[in-house]
Each structure stands twice: as C-alpha cells, then as structure tokens.
C-alpha cells in the first residue's frame, strides 16, 4: 500500500479496470427513476460522504471542509451495469447512539429504510475513531461496503493501512479511495454491486459485549426478538436499545412496525419526514 490503491476484492483484470467500469456508470442526478436497489452513504462528519455522493450521481451537493454541512438526507440516482440505484446521502455522525436530530435521521434510515447497501465512508487518517461508527453500522446492517477515503492524505502523513486485514476483521469489502480525485471509484462500484446483488457475508463483525451479564441479557432478549419478529436482521442491536430504554425503539416494538423490517419494507424510511421538528 505504498502507491496506488487496490481493492481488497479485486476482480479479473478487465472488470476492475477504471475505463471499463466507469463506462458502465450512468449518473442520473436527482432522477432516480425505477431503481432496483437503495444505497445509503453514511460516515463520520467531514470524511467525504458528499464527495462520494456527487461522484456517483453527478449532482453537486455542497461540499466543504467542515463537519456538519449535511443535516438532511439528499437523494440521487445512478445506474451501473444496467442496474438502477437510488443513493441517499445521510448526515455525518460520530455515533448512532445519541439523540440529536441528524443522528436520528441517519439511524432511522439505516434501520427502517433498509438500504440494500450502505457505503460507510471512513477517514483513513483517523481510522480508529471512524471504526466506532462502522462497528455500529454493522450492528444494524450486514450489507456494508467500507470506503476507506482520503488515502492520499494518510499516505502523505506516513500512515499505512493493511486493507486486506481490515476487510477480514470487519467481514465486509473495504475499498481504498481518494474520492476527491476520483481514485477508487470503479472499485467502489464493483463492491457496491457485489453486496447489493448477493447474499450478505456471514462473517460480519458484530461487537460482543465485554460485560458478561450484559452479553447474556443481550443474547436472551435477542432470541426473543427473533421469535417475535422472524427475519429481523439486527436483533442484537434492537435488544441493546430496548435494554437502554430507547423510546423510539420501544415504540417500534409496541406498534409492531419493527416487524416490517423482517419483511423488508424498503420504503418505510422514505415515508418519514427528513426534518422532524425540534423536540
């Protein structure tokens, strides 16, 4: 990893070639049309989410070098190898645990919007802090591609990242990128298509609770949730929220909307207003 970036999941020579892949990308702007898949862009503030979003959709969401620019969801579309994608740019957040408006928008979309792929954009110069969010995203969904962005900066600062090892640890594809220069985009598209069209990996990293009593409680409750809502993909995460007494999760259990997740209600998230009012 000293010069140039290789995707950890490099395909045959021809299909991973930039010209080949870019030729299959059609930027649709805000016209999402009849899409086949929903993809979300999530990540910490100021990691280049909007840059990735713009590169894929051809839109010009405002990008700037400071955290907190994107507070609402932006939507756009692209097609890649004949498949239509609706791409949703989520507000940048440090976690999905607390209750500010922007974090709620991101969390609710991942949970209720059930994107087919979530592109987790990560600042490679601050990997550890960014992984905190990635691990939380992996608790909610296993259909994730990690876009290891700002590789040009981390190289400049003498930081080397073992991309293959990171991919094995997380159990999802990791694509090194420099989105501002368009580097790594073809590989990202390749990985997005893979995750969207195939069964999710079984080896996805799920954080185990270090406190044994907590881990037992999570396991017990998670089993019950699995019985009550067959097919629910993130029972452990929901169990944690219930143990914490999170009001919106409790509400989703009480009125049964959580059950829709098991049936794959991809549109449930879009029905929610992007900007819920101050409480």
């Amino acid at each position: 990893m000293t010069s140039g970036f290789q995707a950890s999941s490099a395909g045959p020579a021809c299909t991973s070639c930039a010209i080949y892949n870019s030729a299959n990308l059609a930027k649709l702007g805000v016209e999402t049309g009849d899409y086949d898949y929903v993809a979300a862009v999530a990540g910490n503030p100021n990691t280049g989410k909007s840059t990735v979003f713009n590169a894929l959709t051809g839109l010009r969401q405002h990008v700037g070098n400071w955290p907190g620019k994107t507070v609402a969801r932006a939507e756009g579309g692209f097609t890649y190898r004949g498949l239509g994608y609706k791409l949703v740019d989520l507000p940048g957040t440090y976690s999905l645990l607390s209750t500010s408006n922007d974090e709620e928008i991101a969390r609710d979309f991942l949970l209720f919007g059930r994107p087919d792929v979530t592109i987790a954009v990560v600042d490679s110069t601050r990997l550890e802090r960014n992984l905190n969010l990635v691990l939380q995203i992996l608790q909610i969904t296993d259909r994730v591609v990690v876009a290891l962005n700002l590789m040009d900066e981390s190289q400049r600062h003498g930081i080397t990242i073992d991309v293959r090892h990171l991919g094995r640890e997380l159990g999802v594809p990791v694509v090194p990128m420099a989105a501002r220069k368009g580097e790594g985009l073809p590989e990202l598209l390749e990985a997005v298509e893979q995750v969207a069209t195939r069964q999710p990996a079984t080896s996805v990293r799920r954080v185990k609770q270090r406190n044994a009593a907590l881990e037992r409680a999570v396991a017990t409750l998670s089993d019950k949730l699995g019985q009550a809502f067959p097919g629910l993909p993130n029972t452990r995460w929901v169990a944690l929220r219930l143990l914490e007494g999170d009001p919106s999760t409790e509400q989703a259990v009480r009125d049964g909307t959580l059950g829709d997740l098991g049936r794959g209600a991809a549109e449930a998230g879009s029905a929610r207003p992007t900007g819920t009012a101050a409480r």
Partner: protein
Amino acid sequence: MSNAHLLDQAAALRDDLPADFQDGIVESIYADAAAISSHTVSRDSQRARLTADRLLDRALTHRVWGFAVMGVLFFAVFWFTIVGAAAPSAWLYTLLVDNGHAWLRDGFVALGSPAWLTGILIDGAYLGTAWVTAVMLPPMAIFFPLFTLLEDFGYLPRVAFNLDRLFSAAGTHGKQSLSMMMGYGCNAAGVTATRIIDSPRERLIAIITNNFSICNGRWPTLILMGTIFIGALAPPALGSVVAAGSVVTVAVIGVLTTLLVSWALSKTVLRGQTSAYSLELPPYRRPQLWRTLHTSLIDRTLFVLRRALLMAAPAGAVIWLISNVDVGGTSVAAHVVGALDPLGLALGLNGVILLAYIVAIPANEIIIPTILMLTMTLGSGMSGAQNGVMIELGPAQTETVLIQIGGWTLLTAINLMLFSLLHNPCSTTILTIWNETKSLKWTSLATLLPLTLAFAVTFLTATVARLAGWV
C-alpha cells in the same frame, strides 16, 4: 399487542444489570475499534506528520492571534470584493440599465404596446431585475469564491473554535458558531443547520439568533452603503479600505449581538445547562481552485442571483403599480410613505426605507433598488424621471440622488446598515423557522425580537446623534 411482553422482559433484564451498563456498550465498541486499528494501521514515525498543521492551528486558534487573523482575513475578503466589483458593476450598469432599458423601451413603443404594459414590464419588472444583476452579480462572483476557498481550506472550524469560548460564556452550545457560519450565506440554511445541536433549548437560541448573521441578500446593501457614504468620508486613496472596514464593523456588531441576545435568552426564557460537546478540527486541505470557482459561481452565485431576480421582477412591477395608481390625486406609494415618515424619521431612517422593507419581506436582495426607485418617484421631481421608472444611475450618482432628492444624511446610511443587520428575517427564513420548530410562539419570537431590536437600536442612535447635534 402481544409485543408488550418484550418490553417487560427488557425491563426485567435491565434491573439485573449494573447501573453503569450503558457505558459498557460504548466501551465495547471503542475497545473493538482500537483492537482492529492497532492491527491494521502502522505509522511511519520518520515522517514529520501533521506538524505544519499543528503549527498553523496553534496560530489560527491562538487566544489573541486567532482573532487578529480572523479580522484581517475577513477584512481582506471584503476589500477584494469592494475593489474588484466596482468596474464590472459599472460596466453591467451601462449595458443592462442605461442601454438595455432604452432599447427595450423603444422596441415596446415601436410595437405599439400600451403605456401601462410598457410601464409594468419594462419600467417595473425589467429595470428591477437589471438593477439587481448589476449591483449584486459582481460582488457575489468575487465574495463567494473567496469565502468558499477559506471553507475548503478548513478555516471555518477554526473560527468556530475561536468563537466557542465566547458562546459558552453566553450560555449556549458551541456548535452555534457553525450554524452562525451557515447563516452568513443564507439564514434559512443556517436555521436548518441548527439540527446539529442536540439540546432543544440551545437549538432554539441558535435559531432565534441566526438572523444576526448577515445573509447574501444583505451584503450588497452594506457594501453599497459602506462604499458611497462611509468610504466617501475618507480621502479617495483610502476609500475602499474604510468602506471594507465599515462592513467588517457591522459584521462584528452582528456577532456581538448574537452573543448578547443568546446570553439574554439563556438567562430568561431559555434557561438551562450548557451542553458539553467535541468540535473536530479537520485537517487543512489544499483547496481545489478550479472546482471551487466552478461550484461557487454556478451553485451559489447564480443560485442567489436567480432568487433575487425571481423576487425583483414582481417587486419591480408592484412598485411601478403603487407609484402609478393614484388615490385622491396622490399615488398609493406616496400615501404609505407619508404615513410611515414620522416613524422612519424618528429611527433616523425615512418612510421610503420602511416601505421598501415591507415590499422586500420576501427577499432582502431588492432593498436598494426599491429604495432608489421610490426615492426618485416621490422626490421633488428635479431629476425629470417618469413616475415609477427605476432610476438609470450608476453607483457613483446614487449618493447624489439619495442626498439631494431623498434628503439622506450620514445618519441615514449608518442606521440603514444597522437596520439591515438587525431587522426581521425574510419570509423564507420565517417559514423555515416554522418548519423546524412547528411552534407559533418561537416563530413569532424569532421574527419580532430582531425587529424590536432594530427599532430600539436605530431609535437610540438617531436620538443620540440629534442630541449631540451631529445631524
């Protein structure tokens, strides 16, 4: 619902857990993240990493130098804007207002268009839009790219960092400095940006005070007033420097007002704890010059101009109508201005300015054209302009018109700048505040508090100036 048992079960399990189990949830995530990154990341300690960034940060966020650099940078941005915009503005003026209007008017007359139609379309709507384009396009085309370059470089979070100490002293959330920054582009965007603030109390303070960030629509008013009234006080060589200084001064008064009003709110109707938070200082990045120019010109400049034009065309038509529809031998505009004059003069302004602010509630961008058009129409008639025709003068002659016909003094100009800074938000922003708060009470407060403040401050300065015998 049969699912209620799950909640009971969760409650029962929770009782068996240690009281601090929530910390454990976060700790497990952090521990995992640390373990993964320790196995995948290696650093080349030979390379001097981030040292340049750190040195720069030490200077830019210094208790004293940080503020000095801030002042110098913003001053420089305004100075470039004022100096750079003068020539292209004059050129656009000649093209669109002087020549374009005459050609169009002659064309309409030649085609046999009735006088009222020519009046509304050409003397009203067209002149309104032409004026706005000539006055606003050049400064915006310089100001936005410069501001975007600073933003791309990563300077704005440093400004937020510097201001954070002041905001926490005012009892508000430090992230308010970020939403305030957004407000310098557009207050509606600034109000939306307050979503990054978790606490409802601090978010309301940020929403109410966002109005004191000068938006795109108000910069042209300030720059024009600063240039023709305050810059003119200095010797010609120093004119642009003094003009830029006056605009910066108004912006600084805006920041102080934000802090003062925030403090007052957090001590009265919005009492509460100040939240702790962390503000990330992103790395400095080399701005992408061409992309910045492209996006700030296409997206920001043309976007704002489009909004201004959409507002200016109907406003121009409305002004033409109220100036030409007579009731009892006097135009509607003259009646309204006459009624507003006593209040306006008490505030160191005049009836024309107040009427212009009523017409311009949808967009601050059209304040100056509206004032000039009304002044010319209702003035003593010495200019020979037809009723309701927006005047055909370059910025250089504007001062003459305002002083000789409108009876303006230095006080009028200064108070117009203050009024422009403090007065109520535009209708778009008010609507956004309503959407974000869904509360009539807070929307009204956010609208009326600035307006009251604007009346109070301008009344105060006018009274002081009169008692001191300056005017």
